[in-house]
Every structure is written in structure tokens, then in C-alpha cells.
């Protein structure tokens, strides 16, 4: 179900200000890659361009073999999670999660019972059983973001894109959700790109981290590699003082060894 994502030479500018200056990146199927950088580095623009919410001036995005520029926004089947949740405020949690399935054209739309059952399953997956009748305003920030994730997963997305998903949450909740997202990713195996400006979050969560600065990817690699051999002076200064993640050592071939975590 999950496909690799190929990003090739994306360029985009807002007026005279260049946001992306020829960005290329390969994400393997099922991989979780973090886009890390200071604000204004182009990371959110990159994510929104992959989603189709922004148009690049030049360059291509491929989902597997499909050129995304051939697909309309609704055909891309992107699971996008917004920093400020963007839940439909007038709908219950259940209706929020079911939205994507109900919005399908009649020919491909599952029956109401199937939609409901699927939405309930997803709410179970994000550990929100029993809250399906609530409205977004009646939930905490962490709960809202999990609803947003369930809503994005409901359309069986090709790729999952998370835009600072935990940016609006407090430190304690962020840490819990980080772990939880890591586990969820291992279970569902979606190709995932997520944007963050939090170094700890990026290095703890991601298989690989792409460090952006001023519209350019300065380095891509597993956490340990970036921390041990920063490619540029900017990367070195940006990751300075980050604790080495002990749980994710680098194997000899450069890939990441996954260690089952004891709970």
C-alpha cells in the first residue's frame, strides 16, 4: 500500500523570495523521514508542495511511478495532518474521521455501515474509543491531533504528510505522542514525511532526517550519521548539543537497526 516518494529539483518562490531552491529527496516505501530546519527554511513549503497544496514552479514529485503533477489534489490521496489540526469544528469526531470516505463519488463510496465501522476502527487505533460523539472543542490538543491522524488514515493514503503535528502541544504531550506515533508508524507502515523544527523530535522519531536551510537540503541521513558527520557548518551548528540517541545505533551499512523497546 505504501509507495516510495521521489522529489526532483523542486523550485518555488513567493514573489522575489525563493522558498525552495532545487530540492531533491528520495523516501523509501514505509520510511519515516523528518524535514528539520529553522523557520523560513522551506520545510513546510516542501511538504505542502508534495501534498499539492502549493504548486512548484519547476521540478517533479513521484508517488511510486506516478507523476503527482498529473493528479489533482483529490486524486493524490494524501494523508495530511495540519499543525493546528484543522478539524471540522461543526462535526463530531466520528463525522470528522468519516469525512474522506463520505466525500467519495457514489460509485466508490462504501455503505454507511462500512464507513462507520471503519471510522470506529481508526478511532480504536488512535486510542480514542468512546469519544466518537464529541466535538473537537471538547477534546484536548493531543486528542485532537490523534483525530486528525485518524481522519487522514481513513482515506488509505499513499503517503502520510505531517506538518509540525505536535507543534501546538505542550512538552509532556509531545513526548508521549512521539513514542505513540513511532509505534503507530511501525504498525501501519505508511511512507511518512513530517516537518518539525524540534531537533530532538526529528532524531528520535525518524528513520532519516533531512536538514533544510534557506530552501536547500543541506544533509540527509540517519540521526547518528548527521550527528557524527555533519556535512556543512550550518548542520554542525544546528545539531549542536543534541544528545546522541542511544536507542538507534547505526549499522555498518549505514541503515538503522531497530531495537524493540521495552515498555
Amino acid at each position, binding site marked *: 500500500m505504501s509507495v516510495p516518494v521521489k522529489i526532483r529539483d523542486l523550485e518555488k518562490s513567493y514573489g522575489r523570495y525563493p522558498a525552495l531552491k532545487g530540492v531533491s529527496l528520495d523516501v523509501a516505501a514505509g520510511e519515516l523521514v523528518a524535514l528539520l530546519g529553522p523557520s523560513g527554511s522551506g520545510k513546510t513549503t516542501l511538504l505542502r508542495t508534495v501534498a499539492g497544496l502549493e504548486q512548484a514552479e519547476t521540478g517533479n514529485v513521484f508517488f511510486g511511478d506516478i507523476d503527482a503533477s498529473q493528479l489533482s489534489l483529490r486524486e493524490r490521496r*494524501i494523508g495530511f495532518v495540519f499543525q493546528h489540526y484543522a478539524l471540522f469544528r461543526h462535526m463530531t469526531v466520528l463525522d470528522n474521521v468519516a469525512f*474522506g470516505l463520505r466525500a467519495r463519488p457514489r460509485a466508490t463510496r462504501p455503505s454507511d455501515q462500512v464507513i462507520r465501522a471503519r471510522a470506529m476502527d481508526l478511532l480504536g487505533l488512535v486510542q480514542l474509543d468512546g469519544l466518537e460523539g464529541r466535538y473537537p472543542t471538547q477534546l484536548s490538543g493531543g486528542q485532537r491531533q490523534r483525530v486528525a491522524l485518524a481522519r487522514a488514515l481513513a482515506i488509505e493514503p499513499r503517503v502520510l504528510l505531517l506538518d509540525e503535528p505536535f507543534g501546538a502541544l505542550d512538552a509532556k504531550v509531545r513526548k508521549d505522542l512521539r513514542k505513540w506515533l513511532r509505534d503507530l508508524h511501525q504498525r501501519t507502515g505508511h511512507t511518512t514525511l513530517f516537518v518539525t523544527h524540534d531537533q530532538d523530535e526529528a532524531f528520535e522519531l525518524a528513520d532519516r532526517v533531512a536538514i533544510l536551510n534557506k530552501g536547500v537540503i543541506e544533509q540527509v541521513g540517519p540521526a547518528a550519521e548527521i550527528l557524527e558527520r555533519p556535512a556543512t557548518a550550518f548542520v554542525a551548528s544546528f545539531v549542536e548539543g543534541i544528545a546522541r540517541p542511544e536507542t538507534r545505533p547505526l549499522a555498518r551499512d549505514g541503515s538503522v537497526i531497530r531495537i524493540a523497546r521495552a515498555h
Partner: protein
Amino acid sequence: MAMSDLTLPRAHTPERATSESLLARIALIGTAGCFLAAVLFLPLIVVFVEGFRKGAEVFFDSFTDSDTLAAVRLTLLVAAIAVPFNAVFGLSASWAIAKFSFKGKNLLLTLIDLPFSISPVISGLVYVLLFGAHGWLGHWLKANGVEIIFAVPGIVLATVLVTFPFVARELIPLMQSQGTAEEEAALTLGASGWHTFFNVTLPNVKWALLYGVLLCNARAMGEFGAVSVVSGHIRGLTNTMPLHIEILYNEYNFVAAFAVATMLAGLALVTLAAKTLLEWRFSHSLAAAHRH
């Protein structure tokens, strides 16, 4: 926290920062009350008292007059055309302004405000200059047998122009504060533009929309200036209720004038009651939207 409660010295006479002396309060509230009574309530009471001055029978007789009935019908017809028109176009304009960025957006915003800032008489005159017998399009219209000025189309046009800002002005700030994130979410979830509009955008502004429609309706029924210029005051044909009231009054037919005025005031009061009810509902969903 319990500590600080204990250590803080207790005030013996806790004074509120906003309190005034009793005399000052009575004077201020009294002034405001008298002003409201004189400016708002007294005229309303006068309308009803004058209408019933010669008894209920004469009052109700006024409504059997065919010219009066024609005026009521015309007012309702004009509102029935102008209000839906402005609801649809106000919604479209707000949607375009709040959810998209395009060249000329500020110009559009200014244009929407124009009917608020210019005198209604000018709004009416503009149409006379355009469509009147000596206007730019007058000859062509006459040659093709289209009547706009001194006829119902002119009255509808003038009313539409004057009441255009009500819906748009109500919706634009709300839609701008809500942003486009929910629409973007709906589109990434595979919803079509229409599905997004009817299931996400519209439900989020429905109370504000209804509120704007009510205000627009109140103004459409009560509009005098612009309509007066284009109507031509033909009895039974182009007189709306406000114009008819003026004619009756100028003919010293006070009871009839005030009887029709009570009806117009009644429509306004119903609108106000509906508005208050909506505000009460609306404040809840607005508050919910802000907490979101």
C-alpha cells in the same frame, strides 16, 4: 498556592476597581435610560398610539385600501428578490475575499462598502442616470420596450444596491478568522470543491449568514431614499410601504399613515426578535469556533 493565600493580607473592604459612587451611577444610568427612551422607545410607542388613535376599526380599515395592499405586496416582492440575491452574491463575494488571494481584492472590498458610505439618494440617482429616459441606456431601453426607472425593476435594483453590504460585511470577518485550513483538509481528503463548500465552509458560517440575511431583509423592506428616487411614486404600482406611508402622511391621512407604519415597525420588531434569538445561538457557535 495555599501558602500565598495565607500570607496575603486580607482587605477589610474589598473595593472593586470599577466601582463608582451611588450618585454617579444613578446619574449615568439615568441619563442613558432617558436618552434611549426619548430616541428609541418614544417614537416606537408614538407609531402605535397614533395608529390606534381613532380606534381599532379605523386602524384595520386602513389595510383594506387597495393602494396600501399594493404597497405591502410590492415591498414583500422587492425583499423576496433582493434578499436571496444579496445572500447568494454576498456569500460568493465573502468566500472569494476570505479564502483566496487575487489582484483587486482591496478594490472589491471597497466596492462592497460603497453602498454604506454613499447616500441612498445617490444610489438611486445612479440608476436614473443609467437607465432613465435621458440616461446613458435610456434610448436603447425605450426602443426595446424595457421599463426600469419608475417601475418595479428599478426599485429592485436600487434595493439590491443599498442592501448589498449586509451579508458580505457579516461574513467576511468571520470567514477570514476561520482561515482556509479546514477547506485544505477537506480537499486533501478527496472532497470536491462543491462538497467542501456545502459541508465545510457553509456550515461554519451558517449563523452569521442568517444574521446577515435578517439585517439585509430589514433594510430591504425599510429602504426609502434610493427607492424614492427611482420609483416615481405611482400609487398602487410603484409605491413600497415606506413611500406609501410618506404619501398618506403628506395627505394628512395620519391614522392610515401610522397604521401602515405599525405594520412596517412590526416587521422590524419581528426581525429584531429573530436577530436576538440568533445572536444567542450564534454566540455559542462563535465562542466554540474561537476556542477551536
